[in-house]
Structures are given as C-alpha cells and as structure tokens.
C-alpha cells in the first residue's frame, strides 16, 4: 500500500525518513519507467534536497506536520516549476524553462511535497492516448500493448505503477479522469474555479482545471484540500470559504440520491456497463436512493465542447510565435509573418494544428454566429439542464469511458469516432462541475473499469464522500502487471 495517508503515518512514526522514501521512489522509477514511459524527466537532485528539508522540518514540527510533508509526487509537464523545463511534450516548448511556479504546485511545495519529476502527456494536452508528444507514448501498466489514456497518461500510469504516490494532471475534457479510468486509479476534476490555473499552460481556458490523480479517494481529497483556494493571479478562482473535504469523508451515503441517465451508458461495452451497475447496487445496499434522470441537451455536450474548446485553443495558441519563447525556425524568412508561420508549422503536431484551424474556422466572420455564439447559448442551456437535474438527485453516476484501455492502433477513419469516447467526461468541463473517476471493476481481460460521479458546482465534498463510500465497501484489489513502491506494513 502506498497511499498518502499510509506513507504519512510511516513518516510520522519515524519508520522511514523522507530521504529514504524518496530514494525508494527514485529507484523504482529507474526500474519501471523504461517499460511505461510515464516520466519524461526526473528531478533527482531537487527531490533529495526537498526530502532532507522535509525531514528537518518534521523534527521541528513535532506532530503537527502537514499530511503531504516529505511525500514525493510528480507533475504533468504542462505545470510550471521555476527553473525547470515545461515542455508540454511539444517541439514548440522543448527547451522552455519556467520563470515562475504554478500556484497549485507552490501550495504543494509549501506543504512539504517532493518533486520526483515531470510526466508524459499528449502534445499540449490534446489527445486521449498520451502518444502525440515528442517523448513517445505512455504504456498502460496493466498491459503495455494498451494506452494509458490521455492526456494525463503519464500522471495516471505513474500512480498506477506505484512510481509516484500521487500526481497533478490537468483536465480540460476528461484528461485526468479518462487516463485514471484506463490505469485503475482515482482522478478528480474539481469544481471549476476552486483551483488556480496560474502556471498551467493554457489549452481551453474556460474548461481547464488542475486535477489530482492518486491511488485512493482520500488521497485526492488531501491533495485537493491543499491546492484549492482563491488566487489573485487567476481571476476565475472563487472567493469563498474553503472547508477541508477530508473532514467530511465518512462513507455515509444513506439517503443520497444518485441519478442514472441511460444516455450515458449507450455505446459502452458490456463489461463496462455491468461493472457500473454492480457499483450502483453497492450504493443501493449502502442506503443510497437510485433515480432515473433525463438530460435533454446531453447529446450536445460534445459539439459544444469542440466548438468552444477549439475557439479558445486558437486564441490561446497565438502566443507561440518563436520570438518571446519557444521553438523558432532555422529557415530563412521574408518577414515576421513568414517567420512565425514557418515556426508554428514546423513545431506543432497534427492534433494541435487541427484544433487551431477548427477554432479559427468557428470564429470566422461567416461562422461566428451559427457555431460559436450558438455553442455559448447551448452551453448555458446545458448548464441549466444540469441545475434542474440536480433538483432531482444529488449526484449522477456513469461510466467514465465507454471501454477499458484501448490499443494504440485504434485509428478510425473518421476523427470524430475518437472524440465520441469523451461523451461522459466533457460534460463536467462544459458545465464547470466536479467529477471523479474511480475503479469499479475489471473487464474480462483484467483491465480496470472506471466509473464517474458528477455533482453540482461546489459539491466537491459530496462527490468525494460518495466515491469513498464505494471504494471503502467494494475494496477492489487491482493488480497492474508493473508495480513499484509498496509498503504492506
């Protein structure tokens, strides 16, 4: 067992020091990472320095240590750490060094977290297989012929294979929850605006959210409690009192109304549907009430997501000009526009170019009203529909993904067929809702199945508690083929 709570107890009881723990993880990374490619860089020197500081601090604190003190972690490579590379796994930022640290990361550091390294991802977090970046694909620890999911595939695979106790990913359209589902770990996308995005490289700003990935629900709550809060550097963060979620996790779901929208089970494999329905029966057994719900505009979620998402991407990616930072063409050029065009054309991958082009198409004079503005209207419509649904139930349950981890050669002729797998996860991003993916079983090949719980805005404690209730009762024992550091004490 390598949960944050367990490791924190070991450190508090002085059964292990942070330096020893960090060395164990560094050694495990050395052994396991070549098989899965979860890490793209390892910050060994910094990790050992931080670990020594954590051990020194623990001696001074005498029992009042933060839960994360001295515990290693890893970061998706789109999160900034001053002085370290943040590549987004793109040729564009291959040599880019951050000049400041992301607020969420700084909060972890302030609480004694130790950085093991940066994790693999799809280029600029665009993708669902973690195979579009310049460092190659991340492989699933359960079956290395399968994808770890994406775009936070490196972060999920690192936790799954126990070469990081927890990680931070980002979730713009399911990018933390989908790989968590594929890798049999827990991925939590908080309510939009409760975690600062400052220092997270922007993709689609109104959807982006930094998201913890860990081996247990309580671990996600610990990390979320640490990183949440108002930030003057992110105007979308909410000014409110942030009570700790961990204190509200007791596993009691008696009387909680859990909604099922049958639309969200369509096109899912039998193994996935069966596993999620078994989880629903577990909830019924725990005293939760199961209710059928209908969300009229749910089928519009994906089109809305792609129109607004691509529009925001095309705007955000205007910054990559090769002048202020990032890759710059070596070819001759006739003027600045030519230089920028050559730079961007040489450095961006296919997925990035496709979304920028689509965004510009949707925002163009002839299409702005009927695509972009309509998508904004329908986003408001969908948000209202969910507000109404949450008058009938407290949470919604669904599969996280229609299938378990896919092989890398899943390459349909129509690119939309790839996007359709995101139907259940994009809803939370479009409406700014908290959502969690946690394991609920395995398919006939032993690959993990993930289920998702979505709650209304600011119901983060309820979502985490309801997830914990299942995790605690089901007590699933998942065993990836590849595994690193464990402590069965």
């Amino acid at each position, binding site marked *: 067992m390598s949960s944050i709570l367990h490791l924190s107890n070991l450190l508090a009881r002085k059964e292990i020091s942070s330096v020893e723990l960090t060395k164990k993880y560094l050694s495990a990374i050395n052994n396991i990472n070549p098989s899965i490619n979860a890490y793209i860089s390892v910050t060994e020197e910094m990790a050992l320095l931080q670990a020594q500081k954590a051990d020194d601090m623990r001696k001074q604190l005498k029992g009042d240590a933060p839960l994360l003190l001295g515990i290693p972690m890893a970061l998706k490579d789109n999160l900034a750490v001053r002085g370290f590379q943040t590549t987004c796994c793109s040729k564009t930022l291959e040599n880019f060094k951050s000049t400041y640290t992301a607020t969420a990361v700084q909060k972890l550091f302030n609480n004694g977290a130790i950085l093991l390294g940066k994790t693999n991802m799809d280029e600029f977090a665009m993708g669902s297989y973690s195979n579009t970046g310049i460092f190659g694909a991340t492989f699933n620890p359960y079956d290395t012929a399968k994808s770890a999911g994406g775009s936070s595939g490196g972060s999920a695979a690192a936790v799954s294979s126990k070469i990081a106790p927890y990680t931070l990913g980002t979730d713009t359209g399911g990018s933390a929850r989908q790989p968590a589902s594929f890798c049999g770990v827990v991925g939590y996308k908080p309510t939009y605006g409760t975690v600062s995005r400052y220092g997270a490289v922007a993709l689609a700003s109104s959807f982006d959210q930094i998201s913890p990935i860990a081996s247990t629900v309580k671990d996600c709550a610990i990390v979320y409690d640490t990183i949440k809060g108002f930030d003057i550097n992110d*105007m979308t*963060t*909410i000014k409110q009192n942030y009570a700790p979620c961990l204190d509200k996790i007791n596993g009691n779901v008696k009387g909680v109304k859990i909604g099922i929208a049958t639309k969200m089970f369509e096109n899912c494999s039998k193994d996935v549907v069966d596993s999620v329905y078994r989880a629903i029966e577990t909830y019924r057994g725990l005293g939760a009430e199961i209710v059928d719900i209908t969300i009229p505009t749910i089928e519009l979620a994906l089109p809305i997501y792609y129109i607004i998402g691509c529009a925001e991407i095309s705007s955000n990616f205007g910054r990559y000009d090769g002048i202020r930072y990032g890759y710059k063409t070596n070819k001759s050029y006739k003027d600045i526009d030519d230089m920028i065009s050559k730079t961007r054309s040489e450095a961006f991958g296919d997925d990035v170019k496709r979304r920028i*082009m689509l965004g510009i198409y949707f925002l*163009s004079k002839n299409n702005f009203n009927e695509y972009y503005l309509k998508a904004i209207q329908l986003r408001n419509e969908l948000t209202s529909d969910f507000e109404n649904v949450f008058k009938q139930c407290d949470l919604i349950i669904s599969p996280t993904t229609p299938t378990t981890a896919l092989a890398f050669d899943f390459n349909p002729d129509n690119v939309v067929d790839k996007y359709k797998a995101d139907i259940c996860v994009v809803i939370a991003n479009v409406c700014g809702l908290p959502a969690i993916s946690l394991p609920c079983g395995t398919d006939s090949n032993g690959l993990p199945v993930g289920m998702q719980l979505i709650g209304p805005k600011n119901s983060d404690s309820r979502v985490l508690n309801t997830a914990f209730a299942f995790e605690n009762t089901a007590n699933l024992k998942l065993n990836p083929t590849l595994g690193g550091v464990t402590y069965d004490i």
Partner: protein
Amino acid sequence: MITEKDFDNAAANALLYFDDEEKKRLMKDMSDVIEFVSVVKAVKSNKPTAYKPLTISASDLREDIIGNTLSNEDALSNADCADDGYFVVKRRSKGE
C-alpha cells in the same frame, strides 16, 4: 464540408503552412468535425449569447495596482534572441 477557400483563409489567419498532402488530410478531418458539430445550428435556444460566467467571481477584476511581475531578465530568458532588454526580431533575411 470545408471549402478550399475557407481552409486557405483559416490557414492564413492561423499563421500555418500546409503542403498538399497535409492539406488534403486536414480538410477531411475538419470536414468530419464540422459535420459532427453542425447539429448545434438547428437547435433553437433563448439563452443569452453572452458567456455565463462559470464562477461567481469571474467578473470580479482585481484592482489596478502595480505589483510584482516577471523581471525583465526572466521575461527574456527564453527568447531566441534578445539584446539590451528587448526581444530582437530580424526584419528580413535577405537584402538587409
């Protein structure tokens, strides 16, 4: 279906170049996506076309006070070419 003219206009605005093969492939992908999302055009809605803020403080702008920001040295640290505190861009590669 995206027309060649629309594609070329978008590419010019995106500051991206494409060779013929890339263009053909991307035009197909874009057409597939545009067809998929076109369902929104037929849906009637009375909701505002203004973006409804996702968070309660989204319009709560911070006060206009000068604070700590990136130093000049940090701002230039990742630039391909910088001189005397400024980014440098060559105007032309020929004839200068």
